[in-house]
């Protein structure tokens, strides 16, 4: 009972921390290289727990919260995270058993798709197209993916959470 509760709070906590990390500023030079933390954490839980935890509704609400915090356009991140969660859940059974390098490549593809979606949304909203450096973020995120995955997995094992 208590363990179940703890694992629930661990799950919520990682999501909240990812939102905070999204807001924490980096030095100006590194700003463009900032990984998209909420997507990474959502992906981790989608691969790890699947339908039991991550549903499209949750991804939507999570995205709306992120939108509220960044103040861009209400629904933009909700849309992106929904698409991300959908693809991850659809291919979960295969993605889970990929070797790490293949999984990383899959994550890279997912995040590039995510950036593309963001570009489309922004174009419709009438914002200007960002410079080329803006496309660096998915690569950094994908490079961080193995470490994040192993770290979260290890912590989960150590704490004996679900």
């Amino acid at each position, binding site marked *: 009972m208590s363990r179940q509760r703890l694992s629930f709070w661990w799950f919520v906590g990682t999501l909240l921390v990812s939102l905070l990390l999204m807001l924490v*500023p980096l030095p*100006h030079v590194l700003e463009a290289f*900032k990984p998209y933390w909420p997507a990474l954490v959502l992906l981790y839980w989608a691969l790890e727990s*699947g339908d039991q935890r991550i549903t499209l509704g949750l991804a939507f609400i999570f995205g709306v919260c992120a939108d*509220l915090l960044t*103040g861009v356009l209400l629904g*933009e991140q909700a*849309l992106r995270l929904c698409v991300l969660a959908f693809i991850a859940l659809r291919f*979960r059974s295969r993605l889970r058993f990929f070797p790490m390098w293949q999984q990383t490549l899959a994550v890279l593809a997912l995040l590039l798709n995510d950036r593309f979606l963001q570009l489309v949304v922004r174009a419709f909203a009438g*914002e200007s197209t960002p410079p080329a450096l803006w496309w660096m973020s998915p690569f950094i995120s994908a490079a961080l993916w193995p470490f994040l995955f192993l770290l979260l997995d290890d912590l989960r094992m150590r704490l004996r959470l679900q």
Partner: protein
Amino acid sequence: MPLAREESSPLFAGTAAGTLRLIFYLALAMVLMVLDHRNGWLWRLRYTTAIVVEPIYRLASAPADGLHAASVAFADRRMLTEQNQRLREDLLLANAKLNRMAAVAEQNQRLKELLDTQHSLELHVQMARVIGIDMGAFRHRMMINLGARDGIRAGQPVIDAHGVMGQIIDVLPNSATVMLVTDPDHALPVVIQRTGLRTIAYGSRNGEELTLPNIPMAADVRAGDKLLTSGIGGRFPEGFPVGQIDTVQPAPTGMFLEAHATPSADLDRSDEVLVLHDLAEPAGPPPPATPAGPPASDAPAPPSTASAPRVPMPTGAPLKPASAQTTGTPPT
């Protein structure tokens, strides 16, 4: 017990229900986006949820604040002494300049009173601290720690010691968002200090500079020219430094000169900024007076008051129809 085939996550094909759910949520997100884009829902929602949002901002800015505090705490004595010395010199210099300027300012004031204009050189400002959070790469936004409770309104200019930084675009109870002058969506009416040429400085796509895309071909513009706010447009008061022109070349269309300028404000490094309280006087014709229709009391009394449409008539106030008529029409 035989293993039940997992229906929820099949290996290759998904269920139609999942796709339908995706379509539902995508549609919901699109509806939200359109409504928000049209009506600005986001900011109203943000204002009502500010009690949750603002503490998160403070929490997110804690690492940056901590780093700042650490850099002060661990700065060595020599550096602090040097900084102190430099600031003293700056202050001395600024004071000397101010003293010289005081007489000129007074004279200016007197002359302007003679000319019957109300421009004043005094500044009403509020000091604000920058909240260090990331509003997204290449977004040219900044949060400050003053909000609606401190009397901040959207549209107020924000400056620092060196020049114009931007303007407030959105206000929460205890914080506000500033759009920087380098934002591609930002335009600022400027005047070139040396020649007095008026033009408009836009932000640029890749961040750190201002673009002046429509300077006439024959205009005298050189690299090194300083840009000031012109006060036209009624948002930024005139005379604040904006930037310095770096390059001038013909625009790709060949019809204008295009100049690039670096902003003079420290857009990345400012910790403390000033929010201006007196907006520039709006240029152009004065706003139209309240529409003065035919005064109700002057109208011939309708033969049957019961059938006539009701005319709202201020009964308590003394009626002065003639004077209302004259103020309504501009003197020719």
